[in-house]
């Protein structure tokens, strides 16, 4: 499998039977069906694009039967169709993002990072994305036209450091809607802060802050929302579960020894997969709804700094993993 994945947060997404990752400035995709256990190289397609900006995150966003791939880059976000053949929409980085957080000198270059799909309380689907200035923006999807429209709308200021990850219950369910999902967004930043928003609508002032977890100094690398729990994977190896509405710590899993790089949540089961630069992969049953925490799978991919993990396969039970600067992908099949 060439080219190799870059070391960015959550550098693997599963969409429409394919796996997607970023190689520096280029998105790459290959079919799961093309993988075999015989070691025969899988055909990787480098996505052709006029844009050549450094990619900071790759996310697959499912909405009913549709799916989109969102690339967050130095220049803003790109929204592609599920086959990554057609670039549907480009959103330049909002000017405020380039300026840095208000009142603070710029600490780094400007970029977008983190994306998730959500549905507001008024039924409007939208994609939320984050910026290096700590801004979070919503871009509405016009379901009738099947197009993204208008300018992105900023959430009220909250984060003062770059956004690292965004999640929602709808994102965690991979677009499988249910009435009890709610319209919450969880946004996380480099200082380790987490904010939970309720999206009433996608207009200005349409989102209100519900709860927050103060910055701990340890970045949140990946986030998922499942029922009334926010699942946050932190850079130091901890996966922490917080109450959605009160921000209180409910559980702490020692998932890795250092540098968690990615997390994915199963679309229908309360289990997560986490990977780390320390070469380890873990699949964990979450202590949610009375269930006990459990380690379902523990693997070491020797001398590989893992950089992305995704549930995949027909039932979403298989786990795919890629590593930085390594020309392989590993898939662990669920033995039912």
């Amino acid at each position, binding site marked *: 499998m060439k*080219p*190799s994945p*870059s*070391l*960015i947060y959550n550098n693997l997404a599963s969409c429409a039977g394919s796996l997607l990752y970023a*190689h*520096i*400035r280029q998105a790459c995709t290959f079919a799961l069906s093309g993988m075999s256990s015989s*070691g025969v190289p899988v055909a990787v397609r480098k996505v052709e694009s006029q844009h*050549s900006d450094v990619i900071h995150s790759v996310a697959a966003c499912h909405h009913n039967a549709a799916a989109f791939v969102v690339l967050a880059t130095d220049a803003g976000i790109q929204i592609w169709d599920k086959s990554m053949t057609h670039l549907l929409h480009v959103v330049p980085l909002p000017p405020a993002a380039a300026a840095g957080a208000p009142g603070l000198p710029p*600490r*780094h*270059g400007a970029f977008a990072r983190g994306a998730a799909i959500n549905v507001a309380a008024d039924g409007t689907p939208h994609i939320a994305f984050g910026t290096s200035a700590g801004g979070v923006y919503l871009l509405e999807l016009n379901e009738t036209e099947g197009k993204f429209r208008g300018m992105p709308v900023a959430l009220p200021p909250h984060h003062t*450091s*770059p956004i*690292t990850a965004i999640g929602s219950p709808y994102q965690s369910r991979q677009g499988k809607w249910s009435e009890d999902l709610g319209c919450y967004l969880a946004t996380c*930043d*480099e*200082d*380790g802060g987490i904010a939970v928003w309720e999206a009433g609508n996608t207009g200005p002032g349409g989102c209100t802050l519900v709860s927050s977890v103060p910055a701990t*100094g*340890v*970045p949140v690398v990946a986030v998922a929302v499942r029922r009334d729990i926010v699942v946050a994977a932190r*850079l*130091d*190896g*901890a996966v922490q579960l917080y109450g959605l509405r009160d921000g*209180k*710590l*409910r*559980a*702490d*899993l*020692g*998932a*890795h*020894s*250092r*540098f968690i790089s990615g997390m994915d949540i199963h679309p229908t089961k309360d289990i997560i997969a986490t990977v780390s*630069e*320390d*070469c*380890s992969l*873990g699949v964990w049953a979450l*202590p949610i709804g009375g269930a*006990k*925490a*459990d*380690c379902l799978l*523990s*693997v*070491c*991919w*020797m*001398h*590989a*700094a893992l950089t992305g993990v995704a549930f995949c396969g027909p039932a979403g039970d298989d786990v795919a993993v890629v590593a*930085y*600067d390594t020309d*392989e992908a590993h898939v662990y099949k669920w033995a039912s």
Partner: protein
Amino acid sequence: MTYILEQRLKAQNIPADKSCKVLNDVIRTMFDPGYVDKLFAPQDMYTVSQTRKIFDRLAHSSIMRLSESSMDKLFDLMMMGVKYQLLCSTKLEQMMEVTLLHIATVRSIVESLPDKSSAPLLGAVEALVTRTYSGMGLGQLHLLRQTLLRFFQDKRVKVSLFLQEGIQSSMGRIILPSPHNAYVGTATTYDMGGGLESQNKFKVKSGSIDAQEFFVHPAPLGTNLYNKDRTKVAPPPRKGDAITGPIKPEEEYKTTNDEYADRRGGGGGTEFAYLSALLNVKPPPADNFKLNLFGDDDMGMGAASSSKVASMTFVGAGKNDKHLAGVMSDLSLGDKGAGKGGEGHDLLDLMDGA
């Protein structure tokens, strides 16, 4: 670079006065205050080819001349050394620790020379490094790490010293530190009041793998591994490659093209012409000598290892080009130019007994 040059100058019995001049000239250029100020200005990261060009200029800031092959291999060694230090850091603060150790070791090299005139420059850079990076949070430091690893992506070269001392596996993979510690596998739950509800510990794979498989070289990251007086390290036997994955063909570890070359077009011709002017070859001074650093077969195994490194072509115009031009102009070269050619000394392999 300084580590390798110092070791090679000694190994090839270059006269002391010339060695001293070479090292002082390179260090004086490398740590020139104007040049350092430009390096520390916030900017986009240079490409591999741009960085190679800078180091080529640094290497030729002295009376020493390196063949292109030697410069290629020197650059490969430098790249793999830094990549190893980055990947094997288990704490983000280690990036700064390694940098400060580098500077301190370079200072000790200079202070062992008859002419120590370049030593004060190092103190200023040490202070600048501390000032710039010590206030950064974990998030910023990790972004820095990710950015640096992007630079080294696809740079895979087998280094004989690394293979011999267990830093690289026989397949060329850098051996990473153990993923196991007491925290991994723990699960703690809290009740609604925040009180401890339960604690469990799960068996994880990392806890059952022989610690030898994650051998960590005893020399602190940033140590001068090329110091001949250092005690050589014999790594413990490892199953290593048997559990790393499918056997990789040798060509996986040749040097690869520079995938980080700036793809943006427009204005590249002007910038390239400007840099070509900077690199204008001038007649070497009379006491110029050629240092041929490496043997033909010391970088690894097979023909793939002797292939040339990334092209020196400066590609395209990017956001960083004016800044890079400023950086290059601050590399004070005097009369020394960047000439190549001439016959050199016979080679000695850098790596003994490769």
